[in-house]
């Protein structure tokens, strides 16, 4: 499997884990906690497999996309407020990730 696929799985698993962990604190259902642990373990293994081919700098900086995706998902799922400055900040973070990987 391509290292880029492992990187994509790492990013999606991390975002899903954060959202699941927040769900756990809102609902106190252990299923969400178990899901969170499983997703974080999956992310560790996929990070290792991605780093072997892509290097640690590219993998970890690309994984910064989770810092953009998680707040956007939190706005949709938890109705959290995102102001104009938040969107500008997320845009800067996204720009940084792109510039780093140019």
């Amino acid at each position, binding site marked *: 499997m391509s290292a880029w696929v492992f990187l994509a799985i790492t990013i999606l698993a991390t975002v899903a884990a954060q959202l699941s962990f927040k769900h756990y604190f809102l609902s106190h259902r252990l299923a969400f906690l178990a899901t969170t642990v499983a997703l974080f373990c999956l992310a560790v293994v996929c990070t290792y497999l991605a780093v072997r081919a892509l290097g640690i700098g590219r993998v970890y900086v690309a994984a910064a996309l989770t810092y953009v995706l998680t707040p956007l998902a939190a706005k949709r799922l938890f109705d959290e407020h995102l102001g104009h400055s938040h969107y500008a900040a997320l845009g800067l*973070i996204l720009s940084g990730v792109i510039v780093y990987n140019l």
Partner: protein
Amino acid sequence: MTPDDKPPVATQAASRTWLLLVLVALNIALQLVNASLIKYASSRSAAQGGLVIVVLALVTVLSCGRFVIWGAMHKRFPISIAYPATALFFPCLVAIAAIYGEHVSLAQALGAILVTLGVVLLLRPSRSGQDESLA
């Protein structure tokens, strides 16, 4: 509002901000240790598969520490603030890469600066009062 009302409110807001900063710093420190361990594991040969498994297991254990920290953060702060705050990890990662002798290009340094600026903007209190997550 009298002048006497301001100090307790300001102190409470400052305490919350400091708590967030401490939790973020702990999270970043554990993240950097994990990144170093994964880098170490990725440089091992296939014959050292057992060592790789042990290192990844250690990374998973250390991640449990991050679970505890994340728990404290999720209880007290919105996820849209707490999670992006840990993006300060990236300039630290670039610094560590440079310390380890890895080449850091101008574009990569600029990318790390952009990420840092984004985090600073994210945590800057809003003058409009809409972004009161840290207050």
